[in-house]
């Protein structure tokens, strides 16, 4: 497991922010950390990042204890906070250079790490602009580049999409998928559940400092959705299913009459291939769409159930 949180309790003077919280995060997963304001999301992220110390419990990050080995934990983690700052009078390149040199111990690695971060986040075209004049979206990208410049294995993002325009949000979603494809384990806290649903593999719901739900949504961030397919009445279902099972990228089929839910192993390439295979096999299709997980519904259901249990 990449992150193991065991019985973590965190107190603020006036209230308990985390109450005996326990969960584990798989490597390579993208976990949507959801919950209302004040539920303890930021406190949890800061505790995982070894920036805040819980009063009890243990957090292990890639084998390192956040209380006993905070510096080792920092080397494993990239953390972009909700209200993060950058050095506005420095250029983007100076800012990244400072972050890289201050976070990477092997100084021969630094230049390639900077190049890598620039490429991953796509900020090459404004490297020599001052950070202070960047738009919110660009600034967010620089923030993410600064968080990943030391090639961490884990990325923690606290409300990364807040204040971004739709285009910047879309780009951020793609960036998440790319980072996960490169093997990074990501925890994202956000209020925009529709976007989290695009790439999250797990959902962790916090309410009043308690973990209300921690469930797997899909096996990897790239198999983002099922495909819904309604085939023509002229086909016999059983032989057709056997045929579709052999299509490249198909991992699972659920069928109700001639309405099929097909799970693909990768989204973009498999969907394209799948459509090609359908046409080449001359299968008539009445309806075809991508089925997205509705994180909003899942979340509301979980929270309602929690509130019901609590009232009992």
């Amino acid at each position, binding site marked *: 497991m990449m992150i193991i949180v065991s019985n973590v309790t965190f107190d603020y003077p006036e209230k308990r922010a985390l109450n005996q919280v326990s969960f584990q995060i798989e490597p390579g997963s993208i976990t949507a950390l959801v919950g209302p304001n004040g539920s303890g999301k930021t406190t949890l992220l800061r505790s995982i*990042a070894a*920036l805040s110390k819980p*009063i009890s419990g243990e957090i292990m990050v890639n084998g390192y204890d956040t209380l006993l080995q905070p510096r080792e934990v920092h080397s494993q983690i990239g953390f972009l906070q909700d209200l*993060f700052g950058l050095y506005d009078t420095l250029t983007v390149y100076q800012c990244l250079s*400072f*972050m890289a040199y*201050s976070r990477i111990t092997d100084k021969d690695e630094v230049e390639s790490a900077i190049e890598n971060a620039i490429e991953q986040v796509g900020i090459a075209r404004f490297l020599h602009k001052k950070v202070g004049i960047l738009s919110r979206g660009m600034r967010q990208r620089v923030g993410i580049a600064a968080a990943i410049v030391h090639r961490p294995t884990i990325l923690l993002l606290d409300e990364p999409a807040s204040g971004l325009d739709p285009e910047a949000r879309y780009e951020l979603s793609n960036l998440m998928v790319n980072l996960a494809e490169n093997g990074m384990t990501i925890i994202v806290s956000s209020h925009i559940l529709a976007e989290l649903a695009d790439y999250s593999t797990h959902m962790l719901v916090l309410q009043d400092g308690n973990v209300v739900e921690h469930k797997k949504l899909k096996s990897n961030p790239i198999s983002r959705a099922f495909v819904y397919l309604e085939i023509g009445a002229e086909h016999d279902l059983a032989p057709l299913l056997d045929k579709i099972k052999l299509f490249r990228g198909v991992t699972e089929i659920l069928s109700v009459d001639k309405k099929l839910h097909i799970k693909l192993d990768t989204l973009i390439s498999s969907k394209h291939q799948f459509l090609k295979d359908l046409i080449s096999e001359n299968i008539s299709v009445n309806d075809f769409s991508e089925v997205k997980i509705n994180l909003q519904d899942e979340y509301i259901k979980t929270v309602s159930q929690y509130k019901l249990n609590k009232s009992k």
Partner: protein
Amino acid sequence: MKNILKFNPELAKNIWLELSLQRLITMPAILLLFVFLIFSLNSGEENPWATVHYFSFYGFIFIGILWGMKSSSDAILDEHNEKTWDWQKMSSIGPWKLAIGKLIGSTIYNWYGALICWGLFMYSATYTNQPKAEFKTGFLLVAIMVGLHGLMILIALQLIRRTNANTKIKSNRIFLSGILFAGILSSIFSYFTLLGSSKMMQLTWYGIAIPSLDFLLFTSVVYTLWILAGLYRSMRTELQFTDPPSWWLFFLIFHFIFQYGFFLPEGKMVDLSAISTTLTLLFVETILLTYLLALSENKDIVLFRKLINSLKSSDFPTFYKYVPLWLITLPIAKIAGFLVLLLLLIFDENPILKTILKDYSITSKIELVGFYLAMLLYVVRDLGILLLLNFSNRPQRADTSMLVYLVLIYLILPTLTSGLGISVILYPDITQGIIPLIGFPLVESIAVVYFLVKKWQEISFNYQQNS
């Protein structure tokens, strides 16, 4: 620049932030213009370099020390206000490199200007009557500059540690810098007194006669090194290391040994009078430090809960790791005071203390014991009130309220009520007799402790309800 980045990224960042071609040209241009003006205006004078010497001294104080103090504290406050400090906390830069990067980097422009002044000061020293003493003064200025910059960073770190991450700190809120500034400035200005008459004056320390300027230089360097050690420890805390306060104890021991040297008669290494005088000094200093630290350190309930839990489970290493400095300084004050008491009661042969005690109308041994107890009880009362204010529902202004309270209790009310004989209610006053001397603070401290325990029970109850 790459080499500086490799050596110390924090220093490199500060060079980017602080230095620009325009600034690099402006500073020497203005300073040289002043020198040119001095020479033009003093063309008829016999020695215009004496004026340059004077000017460069003040230039160093203004550009290097005062402006540098602001730059160094701003460097930390800006990181807090602009929310960049967490990046630093997660970096792999070690505490020492970060401390040096901040200390030199944030004041790099001040160093630039100050070194020009310093060069002028040292060169013009050759035109003065006492060039050797002037050279030493030059090094003294550098030691003071480093020490004060370090102190300002320490204060700023303390301030951000106790301030909510989303609360901006105005740079002028470090009002302490103003107080420090005044204190230090006066001590630097005393340089002129030294220069004029007592530069050759000697003082005795551990029986050795040392010229006062040499001793001032030695003291400045040594205490600057302690400030740097404190800075290192403070940076370690920021980088999430949890260290016990052992260094603080070492400092207090060092401070005791250092001061002991002043009272030691020639040819002796152990002297009871010197010990009791130094202990008295330490007692007063640690009491003042307890107040100062208690006002400046974090006093949130979570910390006390952690301390109480570790005591309950006999986990003393954890208690020692997290105990705030004021809570460890107070017992030292008590011990120092108790030892003084013991030495006075048993040996009774310290002429310096006898004079001081007489000034406070303390003539008998019972009065001496009573005075000591009263002092400690009033400290308990004051610290109890401080904690009560901090545990209240609106603790934001607790420490400021406490400051007002202290001024009221120890300054304003005694002045207003002088002659009424009620001062013993406020602070230790032997003139009202031994029973009121101990009785009032005993009742007051018991009352405060009672309310503190009640408050703690209330907080614990509410906490359990919310959990």
